[in-house]
């Protein structure tokens, strides 16, 4: 209540020596950052440069293309069925992501906002499924799909996603737990059933988590190599981009310039999606780490 306490504290300017030390530290920090950033960018730069070289240049000790050979990007499409591979990837990505959302959201809701006996046990099972390496279950599942005559296509990759994905359930549940009970109670007072609450209130409030799950699922399927390798290796008609790219070099001998052009084309969609949805991305990644 004294007058002195009411006065705002004035921050004193630190002495010159301290300021100089702080400045030098900031310079050192930034120089380190710049060097590290250059090293992180270098591979991208080499990929771009090589993708614009002629084949002989790519195999020489020159780092800068001269002349620039833009036709590489036309040749890539002529030499490999990139559109077919991209279509397969899209089929896999879209159907799998849709399945993950449709099947995981209700499960996450039941595990977070409805009270029932055995809920903690069920959530424990989700965590166990999340922890254990998928490689473990690969052999019997392959046998199962082989018996159903579905090996050689995308069905074994897509169908499991329509039955709940442990990681997505976990992420959605963690987010739904943070929704204040009052919102749900208000809807209940208005006479909404649980399903209606899920379809309206929860879906709207959990949008950031749903966006993150959709993004991760898209990324995962777009980048997935192991499962397509198992199930489509023998049947090039159903190769997604990643398998096509990995076989690209053996299809076309050692053409590093074209290989790098193809590599760039496969990286491009992910990077475009990243810049379009940067915020959802970073939020999603931190959601998995910090709130987990």
């Amino acid at each position, binding site marked *: 209540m004294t007058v002195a306490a009411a006065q705002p504290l004035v921050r004193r300017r630190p002495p010159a020596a301290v300021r100089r030390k702080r400045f030098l530290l900031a310079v050192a920090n*930034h120089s380190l*950052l710049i060097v*590290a*950033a250059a090293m*992180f*960018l270098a*591979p*991208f730069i*080499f990929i771009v440069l090589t993708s614009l070289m002629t084949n002989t240049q790519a195999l*020489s*000790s020159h780092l800068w293309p001269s002349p620039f050979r833009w036709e590489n990007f036309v040749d890539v499409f002529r030499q490999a069925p990139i559109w077919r591979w991209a279509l397969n990837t899209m089929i896999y990505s879209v159907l799998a992501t849709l399945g993950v959302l*449709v*099947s*995981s959201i*209700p*499960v996450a*809701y*039941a595990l977070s906002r409805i009270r*029932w006996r055995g809920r903690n046990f069920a959530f424990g*099972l989700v965590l166990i*499924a999340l922890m*254990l*390496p998928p490689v*473990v*279950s*690969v*052999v*019997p*599942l*392959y046998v199962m799909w082989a018996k159903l005559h579905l090996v050689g296509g995308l069905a074994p990759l897509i169908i499991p996603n*329509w*039955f*709940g994905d442990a990681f997505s*359930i976990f992420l959605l549940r963690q987010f739904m737990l943070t929704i204040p009970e009052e919102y749900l109670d208000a809807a209940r007072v208005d006479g909404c059933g*649980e*399903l209606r609450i899920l379809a309206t209130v929860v879906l709207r409030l959990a949008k950031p988590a749903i966006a993150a799950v959709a993004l991760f699922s898209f*990324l995962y399927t*777009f*980048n997935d*190599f*192991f499962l397509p*390798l*198992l199930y489509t290796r023998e049947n090039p008609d159903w190769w997604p981009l*990643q398998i096509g*790219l*990995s076989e690209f*070099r*053996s299809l076309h001998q*050692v053409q590093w310039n074209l*290989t790098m052009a193809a*590599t760039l084309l*496969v*990286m491009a969609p*992910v*990077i475009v999606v*990243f810049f379009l949805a940067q915020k959802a991305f*970073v939020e999603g990644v*931190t959601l*998995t*780490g910090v709130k987990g």
Partner: protein
Amino acid sequence: MTEAAATAAAPFTAERKRARRRAAWRRRRLVLLLMSPWLVGFSVFFGYPLVMSVYLSFTHYDLLSSPKWIGLANYKYLFRDDPQVGQAVKNTIWIIVVMVPLQVLFAFGVAMMLARAKRGGGFFRTVFYLPALAPPVAATLAFVYILNPATGPVNIILSHLGIEGPLWFQSPGWSKPSLVLLGLWGVGNVMIIFLAAVLDVPQHLYESAELDGAGPLQRMRWVTLPTISPVILFSVVIGVIAGMQYFTQAYVASNVASGQASQAGDQTVNNLGYPEGSTLFYPVFLYQHGFREFNMGYASALSVLLLVVAFSVTLFIIVNSRRWVHYAGAVK
């Protein structure tokens, strides 16, 4: 309570009970409906394969004829006679022991620098995160080219500096370190998580530490590290689990590097683990047995072993973490 009142109330409570039971039943049905996709998924894509793996591991099965029970023969071969499994296990342990700590250290270092950056933080964050997005196949292809011994940019630059570069993916001694470089390049996810954690450390903790006379290093040791220890635990667990499943990069690198060496891209040659088995990691080994040679029984035994080890290691880390992980507000 009088007799008359009790008899009058009885039908009322009975009705109430029935209504409550009906509501509970409806609720249970709703939960069942919501949970059903996962219940089916868990049993078909998790429970069933788990049980089947154990069963198949006691059989000889080539997918053509039905499984033949051979008892412990697969396990005997696995633990006693298999000449390759030791190498696969050693390679996997190598990649986990080297890559996971390096990734955590590196991510932490970059996150600390980013947290301090006064300008351009957004730009730098994007640069460090971007490689994590690159599809593993594409990133691996790029690294095999960049680290190409004769004409790759890295060795060209090294030779300008008067250093003779190593053979990278072409030499058994350098192939795993090359994969580690690739892994460090893609460290963005871990880095973002660390950055968020470092920025989340309450400022007043630093201030009170400073008042107590703690220098920058002491502040990092006694304030930053304990506060972000749950995140360190998380990334170590995730890293170890990922290390045990390390496949795509190893597969693509050995495939491409060996094709480059023979200049023929001959697919009939078994090039897994090239060069000289130095990239033959456990999952690659499992893949080779299960899906190249169709020894489903033996591959199942391998996957059961992996399951047991993965489970024990995860449990071990989590149990031991109580000693060094500090949860804010938690009673130890």
